[in-house]
């Protein structure tokens, strides 16, 4: 399993994702991308849908990518990498390529949960050999913090603003991780920018399987969450410690919860530092909604633990 030394060594040997990109100082995405790329030994080809990462790394005529990289459109990263991987198989069969090459997608929640879900589902069903990493910052941050189906209930986003009549996004977030697990792919996991070694281990485990794999990584956006610029790790850690964002994996259908906090923190601990939830603390209605959010977190956490017990044959 990769540790900090191994990751650092690989970073030294080949800088796959270079400095000079224009992601915000304090953005979680570059940490996640570096960790993922350094956790894979084989040569990689990367695809990204339109989004923060894409625009921050590929302004013509510059590029932050020191590995082959492709961007096509917003909703088609999974289909694009499927084509790359199909080409790889064809050319290997013809003896034109001998090397083992791996395929990775880095896509945001908008490009994955929403507009890219169909292409993702198709690629998962067809069984292409690739790893899809979701940089989940819970809204369309690149275009200005519009709500996505990953945005939590009650969060104020620019297209689900907290107003006098409606207290932020009325709907619950979609559970993409479970949707992907339902495809019966060999490896699905949730990870967080607060636990990079856990992420590295997950990438390594994922890459030991042929076929489609997905890791849904919670990726703090201080701008969209309206937190401190230096809070990428601490905010993600609170999400994990409140069990709002459990770290778990589903390996060939078997659930494993990778981290069970000794003391499960109340959801307020994660909500409070975020400007997007500030309105919830100012009214009785908001406080009621916080209680509902807590109930939902508890329900999902218990459900996850039951799934773990169930699939582990206990």
């Amino acid at each position, binding site marked *: 399993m990769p540790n900090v030394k191994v990751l650092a060594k690989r970073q030294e040997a080949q800088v796959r994702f270079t400095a000079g990109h224009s992601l915000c100082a304090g953005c979680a995405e570059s940490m996640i991308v570096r960790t993922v790329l350094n956790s894979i030994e084989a040569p990689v080809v990367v695809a990204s849908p339109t989004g923060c990462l894409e625009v921050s790394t590929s302004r013509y005529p*510059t590029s932050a990518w020191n590995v*082959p990289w492709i961007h096509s459109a917003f909703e088609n990263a999974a*289909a694009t990498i*499927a*084509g*790359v991987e*199909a080409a790889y198989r*064809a050319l290997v069969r013809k003896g034109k390529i001998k090397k083992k*090459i791996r395929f990775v997608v880095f896509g945001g929640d908008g490009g994955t949960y929403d507009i890219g879900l169909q292409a993702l589902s198709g690629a998962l*069903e067809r069984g292409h050999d690739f790893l899809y990493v979701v940089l989940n910052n819970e809204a369309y941050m690149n275009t200005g913090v519009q709500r996505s189906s990953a945005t939590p209930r009650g969060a104020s986003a620019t297209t689900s603003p907290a107003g006098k009549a409606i207290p932020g996004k009325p709907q619950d977030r979609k559970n993409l991780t479970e949707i992907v697990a339902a495809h019966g792919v060999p490896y699905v996991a949730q990870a967080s920018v607060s636990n990079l070694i856990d992420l590295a281990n997950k990438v390594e485990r994922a890459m030991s399987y042929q076929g489609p794999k997905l890791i849904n990584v919670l990726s703090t956006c201080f701008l969209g969450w309206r937190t401190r610029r230096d809070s990428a790790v601490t905010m993600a850690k609170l999400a994990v410690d409140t069990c709002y964002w459990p770290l778990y994996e589903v390996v060939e259908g078997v659930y494993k919860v990778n981290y069970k906090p000794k003391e499960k923190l109340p959801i307020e601990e994660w909500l409070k530092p975020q400007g997007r939830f500030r309105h919830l603390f100012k009214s009785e209605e908001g406080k009621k909604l916080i209680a509902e959010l807590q109930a939902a977190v508890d329900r999902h956490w218990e459900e996850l633990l039951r799934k773990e017990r169930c699939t582990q044959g206990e």
Partner: protein
Amino acid sequence: MKKTMTGHKAVAEAMRQIEPDVVAVYPITPQSEIAEYYAQYVADGIVHTELVPVESEHSAMSACVGAAAAGARVMTATASQGLALLIEVLYIAAGLRLPIVMALVNRALSAPINIHCDHADAYLARDAGAIQIFAESAQEAYDYMIMAQRIAENERVRLPLIVNLDGFTLSHSVQVVEPLPDEEVKQFVGEFKPVYPLLDVENPATWGPFAMPDYYFELKRAQQAGMETVPEVFLKVQEEYAKLSGRPYKGFFEGYKLEDAERAIVIMGSTAGTAKVVVDELRKKGEKVGLLKVWLWRPFPKEEIVKALSHVAKVAVLDRALSFGNMGALYLDVTSAFVHREERPTFVNYIYGLGGRDTTTEHIEQVFAELDAARPGELRYLGLRE
């Protein structure tokens, strides 16, 4: 050896002989049989193509873009709504200079939904940056699918290419087709030489970067420059193919009894066959009529069309799709080519055959009969109940 087959089968045969590395395709009437034939070739081990049976046309073209950028020879096929769905990615394929060859089995666009032929799908792709060729027959569809590889993949061109064939009229009707021997096709098409392939991991390339106002304009101009090299490459490939096949391909369009024509029709696709019958009949009666059938629609061969039509007094341009709010797109192409010419015919525009409406010899006779009295610049409808 001459065989009888549908247009679908003719296209699938060409694809089998070319044997691209990757085919990504999604079923849609009236294209599905191409996908089916090819899937059977793969299932039977006749070809060693990676078939990507995608969940939509949008993903079909997206997978084609990924595969072509990766360094593979790539083909697909679609029709109508499928083209409409994938059009976003066709623009991207052109912008990334990827030589993806696509058979477009022409069908009307919704609403109302209609599975029959017109050219609305091809017209939708007009400004996408793809090369567009129209076939009159299954034989032409077969031949141009093979020529398409060489044209699209030429290192100065590197653009997606659409071979149009009329839905049902060509795709489903059985015609006589003379395929070339497999080996001749393979040799003619040759090896695909990718440029900066993604799978060259030693030399990492960044594909699909974003360009700000400081570069976007120059990149699009460079794409136009690629388009400008097409005519020369088209003629060279066509000449070579004509020699190989013994079939009379010469030029961007076929002039039929046009040299001394006083009245002429300009048309694309299978209705050209109907029009030729009428031209022959009227010629027998001593009427000086002719036909110009466009093969290469994009890029549009302005100069050559001007040369071919300058001496004609009256020209009817027949469009099989509406460009709502203006004249037909082919009419605008042809007339704009003459805009600075002193010597030019008078033009009339006919919209015909929408949603699979039959265009018969009587309709074409009607066009020739009306031409003398028609008001120049008039937009008329052929075979319509008004």
